């Protein structure tokens, strides 16, 4: 019934494809965190224009499926004369999409911070950038770590969508493998193991940080 050799044999090609999963999600995460912080800052800014921009950003990127965003990036940008290599398009799209979710997570955590702490910093004339990076974000990041790790894990899995622009990552490789062996169950389980491995690492880092940064 269940073919263990197929299951084991799948790991070779899938692990090879995991390079791209790691590359796209890794860079996507990095980009998402940076842009997410900026968008979150904009969302909490005093200036209505910034706030509107952030709201629009979040609304668009959460509203339109990542698949569609990728297709837009890859198939529509060339129409207006911008051509990006597949891997760059994938990383940028994934990062930008993640930023919207990350910004919302941080916004929530910041909402739960006692306002007195930012006040104490503002009262001595600290620049907003410093208040942000030294007082607000460190605490918000710790507080939101579980939700953030959630999001990053989702991002690793969502990176499978980049196959539409021709990148052979784990999910795509497993589909290919399933189609040659006609044993999708075995192959998909192998793929699940690889995702699990990556995500366990992420969750582990999250737990570790949570532990270390807890005060």
């Amino acid at each position, binding site marked *: 019934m269940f073919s263990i050799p197929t299951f084991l044999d799948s790991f070779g090609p899938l692990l090879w494809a995991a390079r791209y999963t790691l590359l796209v999600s890794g860079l996507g995460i990095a980009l998402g965190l940076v842009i997410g912080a900026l968008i979150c800052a904009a969302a909490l800014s*005093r200036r209505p224009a910034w706030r509107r921009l952030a709201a629009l950003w979040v609304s668009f990127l959460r509203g339109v499926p990542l698949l569609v965003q990728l297709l837009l990036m890859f198939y529509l940008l060339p129409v207006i004369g911008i051509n990006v290599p597949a891997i760059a398009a994938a990383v940028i799209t994934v990062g930008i999409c993640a930023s919207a979710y990350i910004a919302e997570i941080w916004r929530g955590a910041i909402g739960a911070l*006692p306002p*007195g*702490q930012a*006040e*104490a*910093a*503002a*009262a*001595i*004339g*600290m*620049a*907003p950038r*410093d208040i942000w990076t*030294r*007082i607000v974000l*460190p*605490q918000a990041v*710790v507080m939101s770590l579980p939700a953030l790790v959630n999001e990053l894990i989702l991002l690793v899995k969502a990176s499978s969508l980049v196959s539409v622009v021709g990148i052979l990552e784990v999910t795509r490789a497993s589909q290919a493998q399933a189609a040659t062996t006609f044993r999708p169950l075995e192959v998909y389980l192998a793929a699940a193991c690889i995702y699990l491995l990556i995500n366990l690492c992420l969750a582990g880092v999250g737990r570790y940080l949570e532990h270390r*940064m807890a*005060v």
Partner: protein
Amino acid sequence: MGRTAAVEIRRVDKFYGEFQALKQIDLTIPPGKVTCLIGPSGSGKSTLLRCINFLEEYDAGEIRIDGELIGYDAPGRKMPARRLRQMRRSIGMVFQQFNLWPHMTAQENVAEGLIRVRGLRKADAAARAAEALRKVGLADKMSSHPARLSGGQQQRVAIARAIAMEPRLMLFDEPTSALDPELVGEVLNVMKTLAAEGMTMAVVTHEMGFAAHVADQVGFMEAGELVAVDSPDVVLRAPSDPRILAFLRTYHERNAF
């Protein structure tokens, strides 16, 4: 420490929605002097203090630090954030609820402003923070986080944090509420030294003895109004206003033992 600062408060109103927390406040805080604010709970003392560094936006009137209007460029038009920041750099504040940063140790709490605002190098800031903490008797708690400090220890970190910045104007909101009498004495001495060095101070306090001993002038607030401002001799030792008399009566009864 630079030149000292003076504060002029003119006809300031402050509303929270319908509720008027400050009513036409007029007060001059002379440079290099200690001004104490006393008055019943909820009378607007904290609100007034917070208006001085514009943490709270006042709705009418003017507050000038060394002649410079704080918060507004012109009536109703806020000043650029950059200028406000600049002005705040010479103003220190100790909050009623301390507002320590929980993710930093006592020492880091004090050093942070020195590094980010005064631009000190890390090592110098750490040394100065240690020095300030020693002054308030916390040499052995420098690497504790606020959650592991007692109430009085937290309050002293807050005081050290403000003092280390060497502001020209210092706003204290009940800086000794969580301190034992001995420490109150010590903080009082620290403040006397600072005053002697020319720092301008505005202190909200419930410790009449503290006010009587350290203040150059005392303001009495009630229900959003500044009822009286004068030397402690007048306001505390020989008050004429019946509200102040009532306010002080229980105090004297209780503290003579």
